[in-house]
């Protein structure tokens, strides 16, 4: 591991003030420290933001504000979260292991990097890690990589479960940074790779996530489901966060976010639009899923994700329909 400086920030503004090129913010370290050991991340300076006073979950009117440094396990166990946003608690509990969740923070979870094998191996090319070096995954091991929104430069997926639920809940990500404070509505935090796969998010250098704010829960029933070949402690093959509101047999509200299909949590807007105002039937769900997945561009070894996502959308909506 490359030697680095370590400093603990006293406040969010202090953290931003300490930021210079070569600095990385340290949350729970469950991904960053791994990447440093692998030589993938080579920061000159870590500014520890894990102990900033950003660890509260508090109501703000009918909204709920989650501090960026809240640990994943505390988030999943919070009574307000469990009562008002059960899908979010399920998503968090579907991720990692108990030990990892005890360390991992909300902001760190959102900013974790792809688990693409080539990204994590400095001896092999990767456009995300070393721009312009190439993407061996396209011809090689892409079995758990993207089928939606990928580019010729990168087929990585974003691994977070939390981000998928936040995309469906239309959470707002609160950011402070050298350019001041701003709010990024989910799923807008993460970007598609295009020709700049080295950038996972729209954050600018020095930006620090301070909180995630949840609007009042959308009406209807919600679910989070994660598919994986190992029953626990595995990244999703595909995951879904869905909210369905049916009134008199007609879909009045629908939100679908999909995980592990793209470089960002994927809001299935085409499917949602196809459903809203129509009947809540299995045929309608299937048509909507197929409308969404018509955009998929699978590679030979990840083609299974398309029927898997289709089945998952249909089955999840059927379970949510009254």
């Amino acid at each position: 591991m490359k030697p680095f400086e370590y400093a603990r920030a006293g406040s969010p503004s202090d953290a931003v003030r300490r930021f210079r090129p070569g600095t990385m913010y340290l949350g729970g370290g469950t991904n960053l420290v791994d990447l440093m050991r692998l030589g993938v991340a080579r920061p000159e300076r870590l500014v520890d933001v894990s102990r900033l006073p950003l660890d509260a979950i508090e109501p703000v009117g009918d909204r709920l504000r989650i501090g960026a440094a809240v640990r994943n396990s505390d988030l999943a166990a919070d009574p307000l979260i469990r009562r008002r946003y059960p899908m979010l608690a399920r998503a968090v509990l579907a991720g990692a292991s108990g030990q990892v969740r005890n360390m991992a923070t909300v902001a760190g979870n959102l900013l974790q990097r792809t688990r693409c094998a080539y990204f994590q191996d400095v001896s092999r090319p990767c456009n995300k890690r070393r721009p312009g070096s190439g993407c061996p995954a396209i011809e090689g091991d892409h079995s758990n990589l993207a089928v939606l929104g990928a580019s010729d430069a990168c087929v990585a997926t974003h691994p977070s479960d939390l981000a998928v639920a936040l995309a469906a809940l239309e959470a707002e990500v609160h950011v402070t940074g050298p350019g001041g404070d701003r709010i990024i509505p989910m799923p807008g935090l993460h970007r598609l790779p295009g020709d700049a796969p080295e950038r996972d998010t729209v954050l600018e250098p020095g930006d620090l996530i301070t909180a995630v704010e949840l609007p009042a829960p959308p009406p209807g029933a919600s679910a989070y489901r994660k598919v994986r070949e190992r029953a626990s402690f595995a990244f999703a093959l595909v995951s879904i966060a869905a909210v369905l509101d049916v009134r008199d047999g007609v879909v009045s509200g629908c939100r679908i976010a999909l995980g592990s299909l793209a470089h960002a949590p994927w809001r299935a807007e085409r499917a949602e639009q196809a459903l809203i105002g129509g009947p809540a039937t299995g045929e309608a769900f299937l048509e909507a899923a197929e409308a969404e997945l018509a955009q998929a561009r699978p590679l030979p070894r990840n083609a299974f994700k398309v029927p898997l996502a289709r089945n998952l959308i249909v089955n999840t909506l059927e379970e949510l329909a009254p």
Partner: protein
Amino acid sequence: MNRVEGRVKVTGLATYAAEYPVEGVAHAYPVQSLIAKGRVARVDASQALDMPGVLGVLSVEDPPQLAPDADGELALFQSRDVAYRGQLIAAAVADTYENARAAADAVRVEYEPADHDVGLRADHPGLYRPEVVNPNYPADTEHGDVEAGLAEAATTVDVTYTTPVLHNNPMEPHAAVALWDAEGRLLVYNSTQGASPDRDTIAGTLGLPPSRVRVVARHVGGGFGCKGSTRPHAVLAALASRAVGRPVKVVLTRQQMFDVTGYRTPTIQRLRLGADAEGRLTALEHVAYEQSSTLVEFAEQTATPARTMYAAPALRTAHRLVRLDVATPSWMRAPGECPGMYALESALDELACAAGIDPVELRVRNEPETEPESGLPFSSRNLVACLREGARRFGWDRRDPEPGVRREGEWLVGTGVAASTYPARRRPSQAVATVRNGDFLIQVAAADIGTGARTVLTRIAAETLGVAPDRVHVELGDSDLPDAPVAGGSMGTASWGSAVVRACEELMKNGKEGRADTTDEVATDAELARHAFGAQFAEVRVSAVTGEVRVPRLLGVFAAGRILDAGLARSQFIGGMTMGLGMALMEETLTDEEFGGFLRRDLAQYHVPACADVADVEAVWLEEEDDALNPMGNKGIGEIGIVGTAAAIGNAVHHATGRRIRDLPITPAKILAPSP
């Protein structure tokens, strides 16, 4: 009784190889080849040597002196030829691990790359018949006329099964600390499954007499075979220590373990079976295609269980090997039996389905009188009893054989069965028993790799001496103790235990000291077919929505001679079955066709079962008396648990879904793939 070393382990006091407090220890970190084939043109260490704390760089630019006949995987830095990506081609030595690693990163290597070939296929032009397969079985056997047997059969099956590269993943990484004393004697604290053979190999590699090398391995955090043969980290520690004149420690990373500590060869296995109208086999042919490296020939004995399992008038087994630009495969829990029985027991299930015969009954009908290939009588064989008892406990008689018809919500439910087998051998061992302070000291260079060897040897000695176990102290894990064979091939307890019994008997005769060497006793063992057998039953649930496969129930019934310690035996059986579940559903190392070497080289990518995958795993055993084995009457149990599990699960997946997945692991991607 509890494990003898249980308290020191759970309190963190047990010392593993990397943990020995050695004054002045330096650290070596390897440089690995980035090409899969070609030559190292130049190693430039100048920058690395200028870095802080760096004591030296070893490479082919100044080849360390080794025995000329050193094993190809252990002959470090002797040749400019590169055999595979990840091969150790240099190493940096420094005062700290971090400085050594930074220096290794700074070593500049110029290559002359050549085109590599890392893909195993059944039509590879380089395939050949090895002289023998591991450890020394004939590569091919043939009895009777297979083609005629198939031609006269009422039902035939001709199927090909494939298994991927698999890696042992013991919790403790491979580690060694090497120290040379003033007289030029080498001490190596090593994570090894056998102090005596490891000493011999290290000495042989360095060109030293074995008396000048000592290997200590008092606690080992798992091995499964990948610590059964000497691995390059131990040789590197010795060479680096000799070069810098200080003790040197080498601890491999998990990724390096995938590269240089062996793996189970991928296999392509073709099975041709024929049966008459009653389900009796008329022909059985098992051909296995496998790989090895260009450095060393390792030919896994994949088709050998077919020589033991079923009566067939025509029986042919064959192994074909191709030497690729890959690391050398090696031992992984039940080499041969594990992948071979996966294919054989899956094919037998296909035959049962095709013939309309219950798969338990089909196996019973093909029970042989004597070992089919050798014609030797079995010392004991209770496969049928295991099948019957397992069927009774599992509720097999209520099973509807029709595949793909049981559904609970989105979940398709099915059950499957497969047989298990593993040879029951022993090797010569020495042991010494003495009286110390009124108690008994047993010394044998055995290895306890987490199996409970120390505990079971304590029991064996106590029973022989007729004293309470707490009066017996077993000392093991040190090559200065009486020579003992490796903890491998499920032979440890049978081999070491025989010597311990004889030493204790001798001690009781003279009252002072008993010394045993079972070389002559083992040499006069009667010629018999000695194998443990078992039957495994699996229930699976397969999601029709997601293709996920879950295993709510696994049952193994084993007949393995006398079970010496119920607690330890259960751990071995269910541990093997759990590893078999991993093989069935998730374990897979990918070979990187483009760059060579392996992908998924960590535990986040190479999935082994988590607790949530292991719902109800039950292991039971039958009373089995067998006087022809050894003084304890036991058969080895370290490996049989993994044999047959993957087939039982695969057969259950077929029963649940009607789909036959013939390529491990059985993943959602394969379940959801369109039917061919």
